[in-house]
């Protein structure tokens, strides 16, 4: 090998050799101008000093003997541009050429007429290839499709044995000397780093050099047998010699543990094997069934270089069915009515659904909403009574115990304990309500605080009502004016039940009167409530009609915060414009996407679609307009139909025949998803009115709904 010999290829198609040993200033040795287009690559023969191979854009590869003026032989790639040529390291006569159309060809240097083998390696141009220095059958290729592939050429058909996916198109690949599985790559665009991969571990580079500020244009290992030095050149006009120990190792920064929850509360956990095994003597949680540990592929431990264990263990913990059950979610999703009826009905319906699933707080919310927003004053008192009075086991009620049942001694500590999570929020709500009341109280009766007031009433007898009122408190601050209405019919048959509509008008017209009215009304039933009621009615005087929006908003935010986006979104949809402006677009969008995501995980496609359709967010609405392409396969040959909907290109048959009239269907085609027979919409409709079997006679019981 001649150390002084250098060959270059130019964009104008010239191949130049330089002899650095020349004494004169001009080191140029030979000039070959045989290529008509840009020459993409030149390559010396690994053992023959004078043999040079070039590959050009014009589709030709030429072999030059540097002792002669012209090329020795020309190989034609059939007008496809050649991107890279590489002599095989072990095989004296063989070279590989890669092409812009994704093909790789193997040539015998003695036979310029025809390639020995050809296979398609990549989708799009193959920019580079490299023969493995030790294993003579291995060829690595890199392409515009961002892949590095390793081919085993020993078999009759080139077999892909490894594939590494990079983040940008691959410009250069170079096997690392002395390391059987390591390969260095750099990319052509966007990404400036040089990676060294272990091809057996294709998802994370084993080393990375990040020095270059612009695209790396070339890489080479400094010495044939030294795996520690890498040279690289770049468009940022720098040349680096990298020492391997300087390389950053992304593995160190990668998170070695993975954790994921499934829909049903199962937990999967993957970690390094060593961690798991040391952990295994720990007692598993009660109620968890521990599954066998799955091992990923173990690597060959005989590997000599920086062998990093990539085996890890995956454990799956199953939670018992009861606690993690999401049935309520599915049922609620299915049963909620979101549109198509008056607001009041929707709210009633949804409240009933929620109650049916023992989610009384949600049910309450729906009822509240209905009262707030539907102006009709016909509150079905029975319904209300029902929903509140009965829910004695639910959390809100417990919290009301919590607050003021200490004097009355109705301890329910066990239950309280269980509901710690909720009680926190409830307390907050209670607090806010009490401060609210306190503030107003200052005007009327000073110093009286809420619990004391409650105690005025006969706690024993009116337990239900008390709870109810109290339970109202979280919402009470939201619905001052409605409170008297719904509260009082509970115990007494109040003759004069002011409708909300009246109320509103009163408010607008003569605040004073309405204040009085409310006051009187509220004073009638139970003394203990009077203070709250009064304060509310006072407040009421100054209220604009959509005063409650911020509070409803807070309620929704509260639910979303709790993880119950279902309620938040459902309320959002049902209330529509009434509340939409209160909540900023992004939050809405966030709720929608989370809810839709949940629905889709539970495979509730119809409901998720309905939600998308009903949503008022532009971003969400668009979801339904994307991916609307329907791909169909031919019913005869089962191949995808590319062009027209009715004639298959391959088998030349009409694919979509109407099973009833046996004509080709153009236009609306309806078919059974069970047996894939179908036809004109009208025909099928008519047919299935009279018969339940498939018109094609296949015996399938088709359904048309």
């Amino acid at each position, binding site marked *: 090998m001649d150390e002084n010999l250098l060959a270059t290829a130019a964009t*104008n198609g010239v191949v130049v050799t330089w002899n650095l040993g020349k004494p004169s200033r001009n080191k140029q040795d030979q000039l070959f*101008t045989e290529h*008509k287009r840009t020459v993409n690559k030149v390559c010396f023969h690994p053992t023959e000093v004078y043999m040079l191979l070039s590959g050009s854009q014009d589709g030709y590869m030429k072999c030059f003997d540097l002792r002669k003026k012209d090329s020795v032989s020309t190989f034609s790639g059939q007008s496809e541009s050649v991107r890279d040529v590489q002599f095989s390291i072990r095989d004296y006569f063989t070279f590989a050429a890669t092409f812009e159309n994704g093909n790789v060809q193997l040539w015998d240097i003695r036979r310029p007429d025809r390639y020995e083998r050809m296979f398609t390696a990549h989708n*799009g141009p193959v920019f580079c290839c490299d023969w493995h220095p030790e294993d003579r059958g291995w060829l690595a290729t890199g392409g*515009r499709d961002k892949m590095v592939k390793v081919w085993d050429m020993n078999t009759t058909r080139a077999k892909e044995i490894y594939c590494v996916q990079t983040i940008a*198109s691959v410009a250069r690949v170079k096997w690392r000397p002395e390391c059987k599985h390591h390969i260095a790559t750099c990319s052509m*665009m*966007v990404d400036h780093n040089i990676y060294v991969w272990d091809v057996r571990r294709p998802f994370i580079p084993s080393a990375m050099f990040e020095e270059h500020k612009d695209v790396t244009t070339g890489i080479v290992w400094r010495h044939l047998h030294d795996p520690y030095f890498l040279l690289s050149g770049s468009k940022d006009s720098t040349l680096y010699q990298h020492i391997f120990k300087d390389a950053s190792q992304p593995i160190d920064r990668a998170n070695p543990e993975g954790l994921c929850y499934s829909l049903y509360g199962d937990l999967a956990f993957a970690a390094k094997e060593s961690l798991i095994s040391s952990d295994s003597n720990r007692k598993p949680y009660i109620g968890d069934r521990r599954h066998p540990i799955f091992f990923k592929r173990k690597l060959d431990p005989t590997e000599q270089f920086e062998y990093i264990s990539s085996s890890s263990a995956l454990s799956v913990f199953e939670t018992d069915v009861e606690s993690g059950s999401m049935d309520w979610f599915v049922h609620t999703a299915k049963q909620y009515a979101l549109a198509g009826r008056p607001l009041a009905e929707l709210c009633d319906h949804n409240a009933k659904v929620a109650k049916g699933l023992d989610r009384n707080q949600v049910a309450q919310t729906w009822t509240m909403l209905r009262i707030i927003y539907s102006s009709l004053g016909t509150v079905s008192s029975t319904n209300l009574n029902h929903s509140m009075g009965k829910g004695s086991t639910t959390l809100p009620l417990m919290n009301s115990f919590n607050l003021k049942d200490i004097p009355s001694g109705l301890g329910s500590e066990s239950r309280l304990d269980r509901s710690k999570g909720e009680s926190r929020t409830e307390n907050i709500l209670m607090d806010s309500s009490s401060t609210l009341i306190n503030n107003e109280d200052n005007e009327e009766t000073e110093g009286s605080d809420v619990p004391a007031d409650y105690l005025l009433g006969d706690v024993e007898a009116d337990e239900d009502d008390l709870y109810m009122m109290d339970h109202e408190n979280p919402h009470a601050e939201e619905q001052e004016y409605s409170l008297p209405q719904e509260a009082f019919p509970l115990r007494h048959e109040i003759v004069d039940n002011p409708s909300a509509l009246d109320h509103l008008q009163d408010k607008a017209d003569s605040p004073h009167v309405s204040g009085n009215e409310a006051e009187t009304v509220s004073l009638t039933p139970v003394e203990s409530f009077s203070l709250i009621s009064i304060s509310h009615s006072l407040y009421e005087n100054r209220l604009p009609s959509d005063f409650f929006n911020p509070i409803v908003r807070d309620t929704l935010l509260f639910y979303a915060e709790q993880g119950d986006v279902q309620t938040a979104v459902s309320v959002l949809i049902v209330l529509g414009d009434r509340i939409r402006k209160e909540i900023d677009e992004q939050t809405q969008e966030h709720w929608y996407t989370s809810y839709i995501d949940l629905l889709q995980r539970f495979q509730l496609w119809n409901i998720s679609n309905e939600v998308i359709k009903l949503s008022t967010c532009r971003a969400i609405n668009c979801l339904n307009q994307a991916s609307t392409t329907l791909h169909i396969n031919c019913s005869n040959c089962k191949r995808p139909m590319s062009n027209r909907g009715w004639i298959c290109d391959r088998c030349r048959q009409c694919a979509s025949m109407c099973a009833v009239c046996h004509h080709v269907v153009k236009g609306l085609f309806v078919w059974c998803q069970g047996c894939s027979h179908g036809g004109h919409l009208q025909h099928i409709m008519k047919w299935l009115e009279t018969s339940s079997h498939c018109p094609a006679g296949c015996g399938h019981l088709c359904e048309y709904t």
Partner: protein
Amino acid sequence: MEKRVQVSPPLTRGPSAFIPENEVMQANGLDERTNLLVEEYSTSGRLDNITQVMSIHTQYLESFLRSQFYMLRMDGPLPLPYRHYIAIMAAARHQCSYLINMHVDEFLKTGGIAEWLNGLEYIPQRLKNLNEINKLLAHRPWLITKEHIQKLVKTGENNWSLPELVHAVVLLAHYHALASFVFGSGINPERDPDTSNGVRLIAVNNFCVCDLANDNNIENASLTSSNFGIADSLSELEALMERMKRLQEDKEDEEASQEEMDTRFEKEKKESLLVISGAFDDEIVSTDVSRYVEDPGFGYKDFARRGEDHLPTFRAQDYTWENHGFSLVNRLYSDIGHLLDEKFRMVYNLTYNTMATHEDVDTTTLRRALFNYVHCMYGIRYDDYDYGEVNQLLERSLKVYIKTVTCYPERTTKRMYDSYWRQFKHSEKVHVNLLLMEARMQAELLYALRAITRHLT
């Protein structure tokens, strides 16, 4: 009042004002072509004149339609109405009311806000920001720098994300180039019943028919001088073929030095200056179009202007479509890269091995000359191309046509179309137009994508 304006009836009833209808309709591979047209009709519900004219080249049409369909209707970073509005903005740069009308309809159909159609003042600032890059891309793409890109993507209320920007750039380039095709092939306005009443039709006719077919009374020195007889043009064809053959055969004979090649490129570049397509002082831009245009005075200025040589030549090998452009585009707007790649490849390799009456001709050099000449006018230079070839292969009237179609498509006239290559078939001239269109699109894309790449690094 408006309705009284007398509209001269279109010269031909076919899809193009330049090409007789029967030329468009008769074609080789009729079966395949019908299939394709049927498919297009069934997917888009219409068969516009562009499609009809392009259908002379069925293979190309397929990849054209596929990429256009993808960028307009398939999943992409931009919302559908935006895409059509961008198409309108792009077409308006060349006052191509044909495309504008088409996309005004589409814009409304996809749920666009009708108010935007009142003009650029009514559109959101975000779209407005696109004006600058639209203007540059259409007329002087070499002026696009990474600063322009930075301005668009820098975080703020109206910023563009990179994928959105790439989508927009692809749309802009596509519609600038398509406007070239529309004018270059003299596409007639659609005879759509719902646009045929009222102002719009008049505006349309003003442009596409009156201007083009009536030739606007341009006295063009270079054109009048080139009034050959039939005999002349026959020998002209023979001569052209002779030159092509010579170029292909004994290329190696005269090896030009690097310096010589440089000067040849410079010469070609300079010469494109002299190719002027008549003065258009009295450009009447209808308000229908001008409301989509900002800074209407901005037009193509020759890349190689005498006296200011500071603009660096774009060396094609430094930023090629295959290596760089594709990777970037595909990264930011997935799959469009493949479609465009296929389209460029298709148009570059398309040949029937015929020239006028002759068969079995290798037209590679001619195609390459056309393609590279367009790039040359945009200052893109191929190291491995001898620009002397352009001079030998492309006659002056053709150069005038090329320059007009790519740089000022709105000034194309039937006379220009007729004056070059008299012996050639219309289908071959359409082929030329396709080449020009794609070359132009690629040039614009290269400049824009290079700026984006520079912004990224």
